[in-house]
């Protein structure tokens, strides 16, 4: 399950795709982009790792952090909603705007919510992908063993 070319591609491409995901996330709200798409793109980057290094190695690296990541995302979303209480109502958005060298920057609770969405999507999508990849790999191993046995019996 370790393809040498794929591993090379993984090494180069995964950080780039993660960067694209972050870009998409930051672009959201006013322009097409946002947490959900960013989460899916990031998950696809890690899926590349699964393909290149196998599900087991990926599970070792990321496995324990997936559900907590989704939990963190939900906490972030709930926090964003509760922070809105400061602005007068549940889920009321609060924006901070400031200027850096004439460039307007703004941060707000919708972004926090979006970040939460991104985390939940990454966590859940990867849990699902890892589960399926593991099952598929187990089936492949079994299939190979079965074919070997058939070969032996034929000899």
């Amino acid at each position, binding site marked *: 399950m370790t393809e040498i070319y794929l591993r090379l591609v993984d090494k180069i491409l995964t950080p780039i795709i993660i960067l694209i995901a972050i870009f998409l996330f930051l672009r959201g709200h006013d322009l097409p982009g946002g947490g959900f798409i960013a989460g899916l793109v990031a998950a696809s980057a890690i899926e590349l790792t699964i393909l290149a290094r196998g599900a087991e190695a990926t599970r070792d690296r990321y496995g324990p952090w997936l559900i*907590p990541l989704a939990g963190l995302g*939900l*906490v972030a979303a709930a926090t964003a909603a509760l922070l*809105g209480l400061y602005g*007068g*109502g*549940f889920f009321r958005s609060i924006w901070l705007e400031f200027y850096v060298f004439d460039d307007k920057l703004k941060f707000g609770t919708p972004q926090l919510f979006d970040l939460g969405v991104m985390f939940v999507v990454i966590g859940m999508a990867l849990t699902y992908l890892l589960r399926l990849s593991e099952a598929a790999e187990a089936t492949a191993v079994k299939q190979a063993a079965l074919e070997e046995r058939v070969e032996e019996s034929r000899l």
Partner: protein
Amino acid sequence: MSLHPTILSLPVAIPLLFGALGMLIQSLPLARRLQIQQTLVGIAIGANLVVAVILLVSALTGGPVAYQMGLWVPPFGITVYLDAMTGIMLTMVGLLSVLIYPFALATIDAERARLGFFPMMLFLLMGANGAFITGDLFNLYVFYEVLLMASFVLLTIGGTPSQINGGIRYVVLNLMGSMMLLLGAGIAYGTLGTLNMAHIAVRMADAPYPVQAMIGGLLLIAFGAKAALFPVFFWLPSSYHTPHPAVTALFSGVLTKVGMYSMFRVFPLFFPWLLNSWQPLLMTIAGLTMVIGVLGAFAQPTIRRLLSFHIISQIGYMLMGLAVAMTPNPYGIGFGLALAILFLVHNQIVKTALLLGGGAVELEMGTGKLNELGGLVKLRPVQATIFFIAAFALAGFPPTSGFIGKLGLLEVTFSSGQWVIAGVSVFVSLLTTMSMIRLWQYIFWGKPHRQPLTPRRQAHSNQALMTTAPVVILVVLSLLIGVVAQPMLDVAQTAANQAIDRAAYVKAVNPELTEQDLRIAPPDLHLSNTPHPAQVAGR
């Protein structure tokens, strides 16, 4: 009692926040994590119950309240709406979760707890609370999905083959029901141009009949699928017996009742006149649901399969109450709905008590098969007694809550001129009694066939207390409702009156609507709440 409307967001916010915190610590060592998760869930469901009671009291005394999420102007934002019916449902679900929690704590096995049983309980609670309190049709769909995702996980957690079989059927049939709801919401948006329930109610009166019929039919199918009504109930008996008993009890108190509540909410609000013109259809569905449910129960060989067929049967009674809600009768418009609400509450209490009691037996004896059980009355006299009372409460014997509910429903259907359905419901009550006697006899009477599992692996030091006490409390509640029926009926009556008061709903959501906009009832339907002369004379 007036309170700040922001508190309306808490029934969703509390379970979400605590459930998320429970997920956040999933990578801690097992023992420590379980301890923290259980504490978090305990705090959350306790707080949820307190909030629900506060909301119920405020709705009963102060009337309906609406709140706009994010303070958007209605109808653009998501509205949440609270009236007495919402308050009753929130309180009941909160109460049931508080009572099921110790049962789950005592009996849940380490594997299921490891996989996140307790946070999922909170997400289920969040979905149910959201579905109760939302005032937006699409948001209702979203909360249904939250509820269903949590219930999928709870249903298949543990992963035995039977659970997976039941899970697949459950997921597929419920997903199709959700799609009907989504389609209904889409058609409502396409034809009426809005998703806010108050706004839909305003615009529905002017909509042509095909539009009304299409939206009404789709919502009937969708909520019927959730509530397990006659042609679309198949997911329930093929899945409810598979998970852990605590999960089954939680489902029986929450899932089907959410579907039924949505019907109570949506039909009197959107198109009360359809309740009259579609009465034959609704009555047919209700009658078939009752009969098929109870007949199905006779064929079942295990405790929980039998009880899950009874869930279906009892749903028919609630639909019967809803179907006569808008029919003029001596008790006043909406009395049928009041009885249906009371019956729903009764059914939540008693059904959960039966499933918890039966589940405790199943866990203790290692099997739920009726022909392998028996003779438990000597071994467990307390359980036998409370199960007996709960079984007869389900059948509708005095002095339990079932008697009041069924008597009232019978009376309102008779006085509305619906003789056939009233006869069917009496017949079904008789069959229910037979079925309950059979169940009790099989479990507790006769000679013991087998001994309790020994040594019992006790997840908790005082397991017997924690599994029995919730059932005792539920049965006592049922008896209380039966004995002090009048205050309960008054509460249900207030809830029903608020639920059929469309003008109040619209006014609470958007006070700026003029009298012109509030012309929302077709002229042929008199929706006044003035009592009928016979009612005044009766008092």
